[in-house]
């Protein structure tokens, strides 16, 4: 009477409902283990994320906390599901780097409903959920630090202002911080802004073309060490690549403090790198979860590593612990 497939569907649904009912009656799920377990959800994996993960794992080991780790491959929906899985696994807490600050709010609220403390690091979440900690770098502050460093050189600079992806709040913050601080410095003049979408090839082409259009450029603000190979290659291609100390050297200041930035400083290619102290993110977040109290908003300031203070400061910069990968020039 009923179509074959309708029968199929009804049987499957009935079986499923029966199974769910049986299990519901039978178990409340895996008992939360005695060791606190924190679910860590990242948006993607790269150099800086690996350093953040290391910071989390090392501190977790110290505190005898187990870590469950997942990466969402730039997919906000995936991240939401992965966090939901953490919640159903009865984790003690969740630490997340949001792929999308607004879209993570629903995960935060889900954790709130389940009574699981939620901490966000690196990227600030949108409003609507309660977090026990929000530990980020200070994008505005870092951008300002770059401008302040350039100002401290006390020479007139025509600056090429590179910008990251326009959808990335950190990128926007770094740009805006720079612009605000640069206004107060008479020696800095922004000659061109260059959106790069965080793509190395776009940055390479853009910087090359920028020199074409504005040959007077003698300083570059690169908002991430990720684009450093592109900047250096562009300088070489346009015959503007001179090491620090040379009269024709183009001043380059970056942000992040990864191994490539540190290496570039050591070999005197760039002038300064405002390091994001990613090592501090994990411990703050873990402490906040274990304490499970009211929200802590922490903006960890960047640490300027420069040619001037390299000897004294480099040991505090996370990237300096690793060398560059591949061919070492």
């Amino acid at each position, binding site marked *: 009477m009923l179509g074959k497939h309708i029968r199929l569907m009804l049987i499957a649904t009935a079986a499923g409902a029966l199974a769910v009912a049986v299990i519901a009656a039978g178990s409340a799920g895996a008992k939360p283990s005695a060791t606190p377990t924190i679910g860590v959800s990242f948006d993607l*994996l*790269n*150099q800086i*994320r*690996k350093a953040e993960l290391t910071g989390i794992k090392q501190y977790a080991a110290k505190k005898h906390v187990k870590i469950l780790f997942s990466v969402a491959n730039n997919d906000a929906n995936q991240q939401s599901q992965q966090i939901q899985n953490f919640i159903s696994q009865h984790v003690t807490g969740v630490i997340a780097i949001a792929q999308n600050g607004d879209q993570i709010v629903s995960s935060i609220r889900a954790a709130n409903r389940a009574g699981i403390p939620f901490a966000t690091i690196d990227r600030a979440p949108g409003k609507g959920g309660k977090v026990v900690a929000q530990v980020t770098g200070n994008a505005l502050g870092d951008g300002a630090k770059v401008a302040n460093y350039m100002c401290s050189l006390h020479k007139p600079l025509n600056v090429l202002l590179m910008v990251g992806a*326009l959808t990335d709040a950190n990128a926007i913050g770094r740009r805006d911080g720079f612009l605000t601080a640069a206004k107060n410095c008479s020696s800095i003049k922004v000659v*061109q*802004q*260059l*959106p790069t*979408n*965080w*793509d*190395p*090839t776009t940055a*390479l*082409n*853009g910087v*090359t*073309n920028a020199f*074409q*259009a504005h040959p007077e450029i003698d300083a570059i603000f690169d908002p991430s060490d*990720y684009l450093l*190979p*592109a900047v*250096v*290659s562009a300088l*070489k*291609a346009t015959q503007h690549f001179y090491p620090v100390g040379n009269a024709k050297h183009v001043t380059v200041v970056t942000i992040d403090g990864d*191994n*490539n930035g540190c290496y570039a400083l050591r070999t005197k290619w760039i002038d300064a790198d405002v390091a994001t102290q990613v090592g501090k993110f994990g411990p703050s977040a873990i402490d906040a979860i274990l304490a499970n109290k009211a929200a802590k908003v922490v903006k960890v300031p960047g640490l300027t590593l420069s040619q001037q203070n390299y000897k004294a400061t480099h040991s505090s910069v996370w990237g300096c612990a690793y060398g*560059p*990968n*591949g*061919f*070492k*020039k």
Partner: protein
Amino acid sequence: MSATFTGATRRYTGTLGEVLLRNTVLIAAAVVFVAFSLASSKFASGSNLRNIAIQGSGSAVMAVGMTFVIITAGIDLSIGAILFLSTAGAAELFVHGLPAAWAPLVAVLFGLGLGALNGASIAFVGINPLIVTLATLNLYRGVGGHLTGFSTVYLPPGMTKFGTGTVASIPAPIVVAAVVALVGGVVLRRTVFGRHVQAIGANVEAARNLGLPVRRVLVGVYAISGLTAAFAGLIENGRLGALQPTVGLGEELTVITAVVLGGTSLFGGKGSILGSLFGVALLQMVADGLVLAHISPYVFDMLRASVLIVAVLVGTSRARSLRAVPIVRRRRLEVGP
């Protein structure tokens, strides 16, 4: 030996629409060039044109391979990932002891192999090219990411010379692009393989009936696409001096748009490498021009997408069904020497 199909080839050798389209890209490129030159004195300078040529050479090289693929009514979305993985494989071997001089050859072989893998899935198993290359797009990039630990890997001079070197004071990227385009053009127009590619694209059933080695040719076509992607990888990663995990992301869209813009029909059967090159040139000029004019980068993405859909609409000839076993109407085939 050539076969003519009455009722079929008539549409495939230059209908007015297609002739117009092929010349359209030429005219459009010329118009854009003139307009930009008038707008800025720096645009037509030797060094600026040299820059545009260098910056477009990666896409140009891949456009040659993509032309072959699209002529067979296929598509290859995985070229950006192959661009990354081919260099990644070679770089990892270098880090583990492979002499730098061998690395470019290894990268090229990887590209060939990865492309052939695509081709085999498409030709011998019969899976839709879109589904295969959509899957390998993710797969190849994931493998490359694991190989490089998602970090930046600096490349030795033996590999970067394709990006930053010169041949008789001509930048290496331009030389590579020119050579690949020339060889590609010769292969497409003057070799038996090339004629087979066009025949398969025009009508795969008829080609099969004629006894053409359809499956081997298809594998070859995707292998060529992978090969050109590997060359593009040597160029683009060479220019950067380092291999980075997001390199080439999304570049397939530009390449496909350039090829379609250049007159190659997505329905298969006809294509022009020269047209594809003009397509690349046009898109590259527009991209640079927009940046120079400080216009939002989203405009380019939108423009590129609109261009593609317009090109598809304008370049229409005959609808070719996705079905592998078409219902064949009574049809007269003329077969002869």
